[in-house]
């Protein structure tokens, strides 16, 4: 059913906002681990012991990256079930305190869904750049009956970094556990000291590991209770057998991207600066979203007036560029991006770019050469040129 690899790889891939293609180190690690680490880590025989050792080593390596203890690291699945477990587990552990769940208005939809499902959801607004109102955040988490709060390190659409340390401090002062969603930050910025979080979330697919592996790091002493029947795997904090080769691959990816993080991140930061400047200069009537400076290195979101996101995405694909869009009808949703709407940004004609680890200046230039004509042509077709 899949075409040949060469056909898939032809477009210039600028869609690393939600996930980075698997890095070579992750592929190699997986191949090694399926040969030597395939055993059930619960077993006492040699294959089992090898797998158990690999899992212990993987926990230690992740712990070092996020500033935690190895026994605090839980390997989970994609972000949605991981966020559900984090939120539901804290809501359960804190049910005597109350059931209010405070989040920013621009958390990932999986986090917002979990907050609405497991508590009384209170959202804190953001400014035009996507940054939370710290006073409103402090008021919200200090209110009565707050079970937990959730905040991203960086937004997954516009890249803006939140004042996560100050937000965590407000939670600490109020005695409220904070779920810090580091999905967009891990492997992109230094995550070894992200402040006073209680539960940290991550996903390997975001930084070039396998999409099946997520992270939930639960600090010792956090009142988190398993919201599902606990079993013998991972101390009852995530049910079911661990896919050790996938975990090994996820950790290899994290080590690999962390090793050259500053070099790659610096290059990506410059490429996004250039994209931001040139898109604004070359495309009339464009709304650039997010913080131009205080952001993760690889993301840029902008919207062109009088263009629909679906046509724009398809025309860019035809021209050889793979991009994402937060416009309604351009993804799987009938509704526009809640992130853009909460920021007061234009939601139609939206393009979300995530430059990859290997994106070159020539590729960025090629995109910038094509984009104005594509936008102009669509505007003309819609009678808006």
């Amino acid at each position: 059913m899949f075409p040949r690899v060469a056909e898939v790889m032809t477009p210039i891939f600028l869609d690393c906002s939600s996930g980075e293609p698997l890095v070579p180190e992750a592929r190699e690690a997986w191949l090694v681990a399926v040969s030597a680490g395939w055993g059930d880590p619960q077993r006492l025989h040699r294959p089992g012991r090898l797998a158990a050792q690999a899992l212990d080593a993987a926990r230690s390596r992740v712990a070092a990256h996020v500033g935690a203890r190895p026994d605090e690291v839980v390997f989970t699945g994609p972000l949605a079930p991981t966020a559900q477990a984090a939120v539901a587990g804290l809501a359960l552990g804190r049910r005597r305190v109350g059931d209010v769940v405070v989040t920013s208005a621009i958390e990932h939809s999986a986090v917002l869904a979990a907050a609405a499902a497991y508590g009384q959801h209170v959202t804190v607004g953001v400014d035009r750049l996507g940054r939370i109102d710290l006073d409103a955040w402090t008021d919200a988490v200090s209110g009565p009956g707050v079970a937990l709060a959730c905040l991203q390190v960086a937004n997954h659409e516009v890249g803006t970094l939140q004042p996560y340390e100050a937000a965590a401090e407000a939670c600490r002062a109020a005695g409220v556990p904070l779920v810090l969603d580091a999905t967009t930050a891990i492997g992109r910025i230094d995550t070894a000291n992200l402040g006073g979080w209680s539960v940290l979330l991550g996903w390997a697919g975001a930084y070039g590991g396998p999409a099946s592996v997520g992270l939930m790091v639960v600090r010792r002493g956090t009142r988190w209770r398993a919201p599902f029947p606990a079993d013998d795997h991972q101390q009852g904090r995530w049910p079911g057998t661990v896919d050790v080769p996938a975990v090994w691959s996820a950790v290899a990816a994290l080590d690999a991207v962390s090793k050259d993080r500053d070099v790659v991140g610096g290059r990506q930061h410059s490429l996004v600066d250039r994209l931001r400047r040139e898109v604004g200069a070359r495309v009339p009537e464009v709304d650039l979203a997010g913080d131009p400076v205080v952001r993760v290195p690889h993301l840029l979101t902008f919207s062109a007036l009088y263009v629909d996101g679906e046509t724009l995405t398809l025309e860019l694909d035809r021209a050889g560029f793979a991009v994402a869009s937060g416009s309604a009808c351009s993804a799987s949703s009938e509704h526009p991006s809640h992130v853009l709407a909460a920021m007061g940004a234009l939601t139609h004609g939206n393009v979300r770019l995530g430059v990859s680890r290997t994106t070159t200046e020539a590729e960025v230039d090629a995109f910038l050469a094509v984009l104005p004509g594509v936008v102009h042509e669509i505007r003309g077709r819609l009678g808006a040129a």
Partner: protein
Amino acid sequence: VSASTDEPGDAVDLSLDCTGLRCPRPIIEIARRIGVVPVGGLIELLADDPATTPDLAAWCRMRGQELVSSAAPRFLVRRLV
């Protein structure tokens, strides 16, 4: 962008019915037609696409127009430029 709910009752200079049209069509329509009302004039936009609420506010900000009220499916915009 300022938004308030005190609507001048009968002062609408132009009414655009974009009900049933998908975004960005309602925004394209108001952009095409705003020139026919005088500066200071009021335009009523009827639109039920869910993107209209954020996008009309963003359009007013980008184009220097005033969003007088926003209560889907009825929106009021004052021409300022």
